[in-house]
């Protein structure tokens, strides 16, 4: 949809953007994030040609934007900026309708569109249309700003830190409303922010920038879990992941090579393995590593009736819950609580054993966030 190819921006000797390559897919929200001066706003303003690149090319739908009339280009791109983007001398209605009117859309179409938008952003048209921006709260003003961007049926909407001047509660509301709007309208939204929480909440993809370069461009989950370097790691914040526990998956925290044994070995041998490996259970598998059952050391408490020579497949437990790789830490906790088990094997759709989660390994994982805290506190 939008494609940056080797885009460079120089102000005299100051390199602002250094050979940026970026593809923004249609209908997605892409968040550009980074510290101030990283070039994220410059990138954004290049899309509607408020800033022209020094080098490289930018394509929208495979058309080079340099060849387009900037006025026409901009009229097909919604633009929302921080806080003061409304024209103070115009009413809410006039603000929303300015571009449709300049484009000489049909009056009835404009009116119905405006009313529709007012509904979408949750403001009562009757009591707000005729008012002036000064008569609105910050949140209401920015809702109008967003409405204006959507008023022209633009495929692309650029948002330059649109919510950063709002209080946290209003900001959350507007983020939710933006998501609702987006779920209905499916626009390509390029969103600049410096707030990582905001980025993770709304983004389909996040583009982390620093010093005019893209450090990592990926889904929020991937960025949280696999930051490419120390800078990104620090920028994202080590603990950030704990705000998004549903992004922590079984595969991230499981014991990847649990102690296993084939079903036909004897209990005596199996106990020997448990003793040397210092575990209290063994995953019983077949030759294809398919999980057959679990042998718990508690079986030994039966005392005299223990058949030491019997194959473990005859005495293992067969009814136990399992989980898949993509189950989140929340899912796992649910299983532990409802089934009252101490371990959960992780298997694939063919019941092939992939790993193991134990209560103690889960505690170890969960405690990391506090341990990190302690380490940081000691710094």
């Amino acid at each position, binding site marked *: 949809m939008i494609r940056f190819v080797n885009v460079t921006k120089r102000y005299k000797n100051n390199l602002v953007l250094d050979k940026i390559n970026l593809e923004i897919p249609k209908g997605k929200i892409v968040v550009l994030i980074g510290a101030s001066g990283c070039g994220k706003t410059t990138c954004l303003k290049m899309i509607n040609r408020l800033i022209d690149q020094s080098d490289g090319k930018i394509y929208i739908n495979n058309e080079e934007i340099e060849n387009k009339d900037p006025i026409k280009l901009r009229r097909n791109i919604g633009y929302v900026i921080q806080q003061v983007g409304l024209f103070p001398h115009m009413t809410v209605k006039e603000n929303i309708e300015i571009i449709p009117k300049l484009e000489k859309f049909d009056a009835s179409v404009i009116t119905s569109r405006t009313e529709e938008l007012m509904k979408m952003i949750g403001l009562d048209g*009757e009591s707000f249309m005729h008012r002036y921006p000064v008569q609105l709260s910050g949140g209401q003003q920015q809702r109008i700003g967003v409405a204006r961007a959507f008023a022209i049926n633009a495929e692309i909407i650029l948002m330059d830190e649109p919510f950063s001047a709002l209080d946290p509660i209003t900001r959350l509301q507007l983020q939710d409303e933006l998501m609702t709007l987006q779920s209905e309208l499916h626009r390509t939204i390029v969103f600049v922010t410096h707030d990582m929480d905001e980025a993770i909440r709304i983004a389909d993809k996040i583009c982390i920038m620093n010093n005019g370069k893209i450090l990592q461009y990926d889904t929020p989950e991937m960025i949280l879990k696999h930051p490419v370097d120390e800078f990104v790691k620090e920028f994202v914040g080590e603990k950030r992941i704990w705000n998004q526990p549903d992004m922590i998956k079984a595969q991230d925290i499981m014991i990847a090579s649990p102690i296993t044994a084939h079903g036909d070995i004897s209990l005596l041998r199996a106990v020997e393995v448990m003793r040397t490996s210092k575990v209290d259970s063994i995953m019983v598998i077949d030759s294809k590593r398919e999980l057959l059952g679990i042998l718990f050391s508690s079986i030994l408490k039966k005392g005299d009736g223990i058949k030491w020579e019997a194959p473990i497949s005859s005495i293992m437990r067969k009814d136990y819950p399992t989980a898949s790789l993509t189950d989140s830490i929340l899912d796992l906790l649910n299983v532990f609580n409802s089934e009252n088990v101490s371990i959960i094997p992780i298997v694939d759709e063919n019941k092939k054993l992939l790993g193991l989660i134990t209560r103690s390994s889960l505690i170890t994982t969960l405690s990391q966030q506090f341990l990190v805290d302690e380490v940081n506190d000691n710094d």
Partner: protein
Amino acid sequence: MTNFIQFFKDIPNEVTSFFDSVAQFFRDFYASVTSFFDYIAQNSEKLLGLLGEHIMLSVFAILVAILIGVPLGILVSRYKKSNKPIIGAANVIQAIPSMALLGFMIPLFGIGAKPAIIMVMLYALLPIVKNTATGLDNIDKEILDVAKGIGMTKLQILFRIQFPLALPVIMAGVRISAVTSVGLMTLASYIGAGGLGIMIYSGVQMVNTNMILAGAIPSCFLALLMDFIFSKIEKVVTPISMRSNKTLPEKKEDLDKLRKHRKRSFIAIGLAIVVCIGTVGIQALPESEDTIVVSSNDYAEALFLGHVACELLEAHTDLKVVRNLGMGGTLILFEAINSGEIDIQIEYTASMYASVLSQPVENVTSDHIFKTTQQMYKDEYNLAVLDHWGFNNTFAVAVQKDMAEQFNLKTISDFAKISQNYRFTPSFQFTTRNDGMIGLKKAYDMDFKEVIPMDGGLKYTAIDNEETDSIIVYTTDSKVDRFDLVVLEDDKEFFLAYHTVPIIRQEVLDKYPEIADALNRMAGELTDKQMSLINFEIEMNGRTPEELAKEFLLENGYI
């Protein structure tokens, strides 16, 4: 002790005398106020006419200043490089004394309303240009950024965003200009554009306080009124949402009411502008074919003579006469008649001979002056000089009676012996004229302790207040008697003869030869004494030059 008692005894007397003088002050004050109002009542029609003229001129000048200043302001704000030359030029214009600027205007634009409006407009320019640029520059950059970002063109941004938002600031500039313009427009009378300045400057010439006030007070009130009106306009043009005085109503109907009111005000302002332009436009239409424009200087005698000429023309020709009297000075009048702005002027022979033609002034007879002038005007400027009207209103040196008695001063030669210890006050023109101070000093071998030039009637006020010791007067001036001065005899016959002559553009005279017949009826008819009496009537009894001219001509059977 007795002194002490005496002191207390005196107190009642002191108090009474204090209250007496206070009472006297109020009586005097009351008398002057009554006489002022009488004057206003008598001249109300003329005053209203001048006021109307003044308003039209000022408003027109402001409109032109807006039409030029606002685009310049836009230019300055848009192209930063144009800031220095444009603001610089406006600053320089502002620094030029208004009289000098008026002087520059005459060779370029002639006389009348045009140069007056241009002069005032140039002064009005700076605040408008500056405020326009400031207003446009001070708009939030983010707003302009977003306007550009959503795809508005430069012109759309200018007219839909920048302009509405900057309008209050621009209007504040216009308001400053409007107030200045009203004041400056009083100078317009110098170049025959009319307005309240006629009252003020003629009043100064005639030392007629009522007349000065009748011009000055309305122009003050007019300035205040302008300020008030423009403050209202400033408020109206402020976008409803940016008015700081009260909180906006939330109801649709109330907001609509405000919007409607604003719209109506805009229409009213527009209409007012159209009316002003229309009125000035109609006045500026070329005069009809058979119209003759007559002009004269701005002091009492010149005004009287101008009216005499007009009355004669009206009585004895079928021409339509336009009285553009009361212009400020010989050279301005010469410029005006030379450029065809006026057709006839009344002038003094020696002024033409010395000031306009710069002829040698030593040992010349009045006949020589007249003949030379007539010849040169005809040959060099194609202007016809008719026969002179008799009296000789030349210069004379006058001193306070006390001083004349103390040193037994009878002639200028007597005064020349002691003049180096005394101050001398000529008119500004006199100081630069060959037949003025330069020649006078040479002829009598005299010098002065200090030369304090002043114009018109102010000289008399100055000598009366002992701010100077000797002044230049005119021989037909009634004020010499009024201020109890002694005129010193010009024993070396230095001063040139100042005979009144009508000057006519030759082409006009060729077309309407009857003009010469009409004006020649006054040839040689007026005496110094008569003229002095007429001046006295105007200056002391508050008669208008116009009515006196009519009366004089009727009584003596000239019309």
